């Protein structure tokens, strides 16, 4: 009897030790779906840099609750079919959460696949996750960005906007938001679509930038956005040109610096201009990331990198504060009930899975190669 008791006690002790060891030693597996090649590579590689930076920094500090982060990236090439396959693979391998660092079409393909978890974090503004899903958007939505543009126009007493939007899924989202917001605000929207293969945007600009239009907005991102800026300059249009927030990068600025129109504006989260942020703690977080990123990669962090940081801040909060982060329901409940501190506080709720709103958006302006808060538009 004594022997049996001793055996049971030893087994229990050994079992506890083994469990505890597994809990503290087993890496936390996080899957990242990102287009590292293909048309959206410029977005995927930027978000991937922010994810990697977070994983490396966290692991260098000993991980989270004694567990290292194991970040595995699957390159979906911006293809929805491949994105879905990547996500299923991560689910089978038991990913604790997934970073959906791809574009609209891929995110739309992935979102229905996480009905029962794990958490899918989305830094894109174009896909608004339903509140009953396990997907959470860490960016202001495209609607929020458009509302911020409308607010800026209102402040400057402008009532007409010329807009150039691409013919892809992202462009479609931008057009829908613009039609809704500007119609609600009783503002006139002049819209022209541009093909992704376009080598000239002068026709589109000619059709939307009449003399009575004091602001032109291009919701295009990437190489196409450069085409719009160059055509704008060639036409010699006098209005300020506003570009979408995917273009708030050093690469974009270096491409258009010699051909920038008289005033180049952009939509951004306020974190890109920390000195304009009202809360000291938010300002410090944004500055710390921007500095850390510049030091690590020897380049300026941009909007997309910042959204990558917002995503990893949300991920880290879940991993630190939820006792079993693999329990997707518990993680979801935590996010829906707890504001997450980042350079902008992310506030999700049981009825809203978008963490930021229009108040986190700032209209910025390029001055001497840097983005600053946009000045008013004169010459009305």
């Amino acid at each position, binding site marked *: 009897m004594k022997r049996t008791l001793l055996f049971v006690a030893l087994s229990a002790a050994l079992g506890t030790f083994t469990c505890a060891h597994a809990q503290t030693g087993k890496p936390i597996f996080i899957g990242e779906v990102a287009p*590292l*090649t*293909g*048309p959206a*590579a*410029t977005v*995927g*590689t930027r978000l991937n840099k922010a994810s990697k930076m977070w994983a490396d920094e966290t692991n260098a500090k000993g991980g989270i609750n004694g567990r290292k982060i194991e970040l595995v990236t699957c390159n979906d090439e911006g293809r929805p079919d491949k994105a879905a396959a990547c996500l299923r693979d991560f689910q089978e391998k038991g990913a604790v959460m997934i970073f959906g660092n791809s574009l609209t079409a891929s995110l739309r393909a992935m979102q229905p696949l996480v009905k029962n978890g794990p958490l899918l974090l989305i830094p894109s503004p174009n896909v608004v996750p339903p509140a009953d899903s396990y997907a959470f958007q860490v960016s202001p939505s495209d609607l929020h960005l458009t509302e911020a543009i409308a607010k800026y126009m209102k402040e400057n007493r402008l009532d007409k906007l010329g807009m150039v939007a691409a*013919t892809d899924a992202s462009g479609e989202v931008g057009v829908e938001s613009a039609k809704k917001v500007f119609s609600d605000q009783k503002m006139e929207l002049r819209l*022209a*679509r*541009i*093909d992704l*293969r*376009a*080598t*000239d945007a*002068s*026709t*589109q600009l*000619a*059709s939307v*930038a*009449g003399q009575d239009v004091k602001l032109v907005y291009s919701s295009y991102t*990437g*190489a196409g956005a*450069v*085409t719009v800026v*160059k*055509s704008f300059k*060639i*036409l*010699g249009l006098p209005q300020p040109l506003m570009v979408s927030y995917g273009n708030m*990068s050093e*690469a*974009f600025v270096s*491409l258009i610096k*010699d051909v920038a129109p008289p005033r180049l504006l952009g939509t951004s989260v306020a974190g890109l201009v920390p000195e304009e942020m009202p809360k000291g703690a938010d300002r410090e977080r944004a500055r710390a990331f921007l500095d850390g990123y510049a030091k690590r990669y020897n380049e300026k962090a941009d909007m997309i990198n910042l959204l990558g940081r917002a995503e990893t801040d949300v991920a880290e909060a879940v991993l630190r504060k939820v006792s079993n982060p693999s329990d997707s329901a518990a993680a979801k409940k935590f996010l829906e009930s707890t504001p997450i501190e980042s350079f902008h506080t992310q506030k999700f709720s049981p009825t809203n899975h978008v963490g930021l709103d229009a108040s986190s958006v700032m209209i910025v302006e390029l001055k001497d190669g840097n983005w600053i808060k946009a000045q008013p538009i004169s010459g009305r």
Partner: protein
Amino acid sequence: MNLFTQAVISGLMIGAVYAFLGIGLVLVYRTARILNLAHGETFAITGVAAALLVKAGLPLLPALGLSLAIALGFALSLHRFVLRPRADWPAGTLILITLGAAFVVRGVLILAAGTDPVSFPALFTGVPLRIAGGVIPPQGIALVVLGFGVSAAVGLYLSRTRSGKQLLAAAENPYAAELAGVNVERARLTAYGIGAILGGLAGVLLIPLIAVDFQSGLAMTMRGFIAAAISGMSPVGVLFSGIGLGLFESMVGAYLGALYQDPVMFFLLILVALWQSRHIRFGGTRRA
């Protein structure tokens, strides 16, 4: 600003690009009977190389010259070391090999320049020209003039000169051409070389107005292919199909919207293909 005039100017610029890319494809097809899907890579190689060289501090003209030489080297190597040793392989396989070469170039360009678009300054600078309510920059004028001028010159060279006709004969019947004293290998190398220079020139003239990245090549091949296919792979016809396509694309974009561009363009392509294949479908021996 006049929308119609601007659409015409834009159409001419787009058309010049179609012609530049189309004539290179036609040339290789007519001499080697291969649809070279890596043709547009000469555009991307020239653009990315020029942007990197200018960034590294090389003056613009030497950078452009060196970039064109790299593109030329790529095209000649593709023929000499990849396609020629496999000349007896089925044409379909060779076309797939050129597609593979295009993807290899993509990979190399990512390694060299990353995934962000790059560009370089315009060769022709100055105040844009304003005509009848439309605007065209000096680089745009050069693109239109050289695009159509060079394409016309190549078309005339092939159809009117002895050496041009030898080039075409090398494709129609290489064995007979060889018996007649035509150096078939040299003819094919010449075709790849001229095609590469034209693709590279398109890059030199267009990229300062836009930007280029690692994946621009296949898009450019597609543009060239549409123009070439509509012309029936004719070295003279591709000039006119280029102008027509450019103007058509621009007008559809201006008056119907860019969402209609692809459906209308590809519908047009199908109609032309059906028209060109009428002899095959209804009997006869005429080749497209």
